[in-house]
């Protein structure tokens, strides 16, 4: 347009990022302090409990002689006392989603809900710079805080892992440890930002974003995670407890056999495998032949597919990677909408 060239002050520079950073700090410092305060409470609990657990584990492992019943009892007591994490375990599992959505959703939604966007977006900096400053600061804050938390939870869980019978890859301990904690928090943050822009109201945005985050976490745990790498298979009957079992079946001469076939064979000793994946044997009361041993003696092999504990960090990076990519995609969509959306 020719008129644009005739604009009296064509060489206006943009408001510097440093100033916008200051604005974000001024605007959100109270919220930041409150968030850090709440998380510090959980952090202190984790440190105290982690130290207690370490002391208890040390006492257990230094029990001599190792085979004495009192030592076995001490180990069992340690396990019973600390392996069930209860309420705090549930809080930690949802923490990345809670932190992410509670920081992300109000970021744009509050401005839209209270009308202050009419002030903020008409200042010299303009709406895109303002939004970028907010989202980048918020995202970095969430990532830093949850990376620290992921490390803290990993540290906290270490004595349990040292026992060798708690799987790190398990659904209830994988997503909130390592780097995945930050990944899940960022995904929640991005969902929150987008929901806030669509709803234009804080509370529905938080609810929607958290529901979406929960759905995603459920899908990832149920269907996705076990396929990050092809599972290994073993014929061993005593796979270490720290490895995560995926499924189990029988084969003969290198060919997988059906549960029906196995049941036909087992009918000779009056036993049956239950139909759900062939894992559980149902013996006839009074029968003294172990069905598994019976099958092994008749040339059948039990095969277990599993994800080994050693893949923990590979899986962490894969999960963090796709979550970060998803977060960027969602934030990209939010910015695209923001640029086009009428006020």
């Amino acid at each position, binding site marked *: *347009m020719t*008129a*644009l*060239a*005739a*604009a*009296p*002050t*064509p060489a*206006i*520079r*943009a*408001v510097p990022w440093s*100033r*916008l950073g*200051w*604005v974000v700090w*001024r*605007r959100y410092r*109270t919220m930041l302090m409150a968030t850090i305060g709440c998380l510090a409470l959980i952090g202190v609990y984790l440190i105290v409990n982690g130290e207690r657990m370490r002391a208890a584990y040390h006492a257990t492992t230094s029990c001599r002689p190792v085979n004495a019943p009192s030592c076995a009892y001490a180990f069992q007591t340690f396990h019973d006392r600390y392996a069930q994490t209860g309420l705090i375990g549930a809080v930690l599992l949802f923490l990345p989603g809670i932190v992410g959505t509670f920081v992300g959703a109000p970021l744009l939604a509050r401005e839209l809900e*209270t*009308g*202050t*966007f*009419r*002030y*903020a*977006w*008409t*200042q*010299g*900096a*303009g709406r895109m710079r*303002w939004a970028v400053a907010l989202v980048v600061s918020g995202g970095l804050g969430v990532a830093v805080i949850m990376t620290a938390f992921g490390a803290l939870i990993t540290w906290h869980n270490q004595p349990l892992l040292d026992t060798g019978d708690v799987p790190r890859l398990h659904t209830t301990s994988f997503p909130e440890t390592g780097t995945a904690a930050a990944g899940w928090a960022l995904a929640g943050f991005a969902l929150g930002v987008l929901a806030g822009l669509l709803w234009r109201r804080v509370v529905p945005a938080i609810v929607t974003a958290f529901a979406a985050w929960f759905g995603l976490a459920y899908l990832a745990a149920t269907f996705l995670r076990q396929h990050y790498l092809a599972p290994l298979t073993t014929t061993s009957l005593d796979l270490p407890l720290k490895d995560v079992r995926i499924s189990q079946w029988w084969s003969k001469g290198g060919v997988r056999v059906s549960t029906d076939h196995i049941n036909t064979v087992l009918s000779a000793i009056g036993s049956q495998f239950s139909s759900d994946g062939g894992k559980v044997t149902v013996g006839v009361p009074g029968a003294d032949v172990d069905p598994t041993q019976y099958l092994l003696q008749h040339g059948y092999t039990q095969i277990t597919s599993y994800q080994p504990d050693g893949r923990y960090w590979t899986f962490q990076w894969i999960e963090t990677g796709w979550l970060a990519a998803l977060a960027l995609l969602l934030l990209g969509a939010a910015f695209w909408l923001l640029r*086009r959306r*009428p*006020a």
Partner: protein
Amino acid sequence: MNVIETAGLGRRYGSTWALRDCTLSIPAGHLVALVGPNGAGKSTLLNLVVGLTPPTVGEVTVLGGATAGSVAALDAIAFVAQDMPLYRHLSVADMLHLTGNLNLRFDAAYARRRLAELGIGNKQKAGKLSGGQQAQLALTLALARRPRLLVLDEPTAPLDPVARHDFMATVLTAMADDGVSVVLSSHLLAELERVTDYLVLISHGRVRVNDDVENLLACHRLVSAATPERLTGIAGEVIESNTMGSQTHQLIRLAAPDTALPPTCESRAVGLEELALAYLREGITLPTLSPAGASR
């Protein structure tokens, strides 16, 4: 230079046009009153001008050609939205810092002086101020940006008469001191009459009046005669017509200020409020009282 220029501008929300076919050019240096009934598209037009809303069709440029919402436009236009949005939990001092850091230019000394004169303390929370003080704070923040165009959307609607007067006094002082152009929307015609020198009137999403007040007053006359027939043949447009007793009164927009009127009729000048009211009533009265309908 025109502070606002639009061509075929329209904005649609869903299937409803909030504003359409809006072609305007508002020269610099005026206090422009943007008038229209509720829902006429005033806020939509102002949102388009300040770049909050992109147009559905047409174009809007500001300050001699800058695209609305561009960096240059944002830098030079200060906007005070309806209901004075402020961060309620921030102190007055924080709001000053905030606005200062969101803009390249900010006259903090001016802002502090103004707020001190108004008795608004630095430590007070923006949300705890009275309605009048909030309006003054929002206006001060806008003026301290040293804009070339100040856009105010229904600024005085929530204020009591004293606060309204003080608010307008601040606006007029800024106009006199800095030469800032002002566009303000309102439906408080009586108040605007004293201060405005340019009128834009929107009705049913369309621009009906876009002119200098002096010009408008010169071109509009209320003519009266005993029969409507005596009023036909005047070069101009009948804006409003009604019959009271034996007399027919018509508000006519003359083709030119010196258009001749028939000797058989009386005529008088009209005030701005009277003139604007005639246009605002237009949509309602047109079907029954249009000159064509009246003469048939």
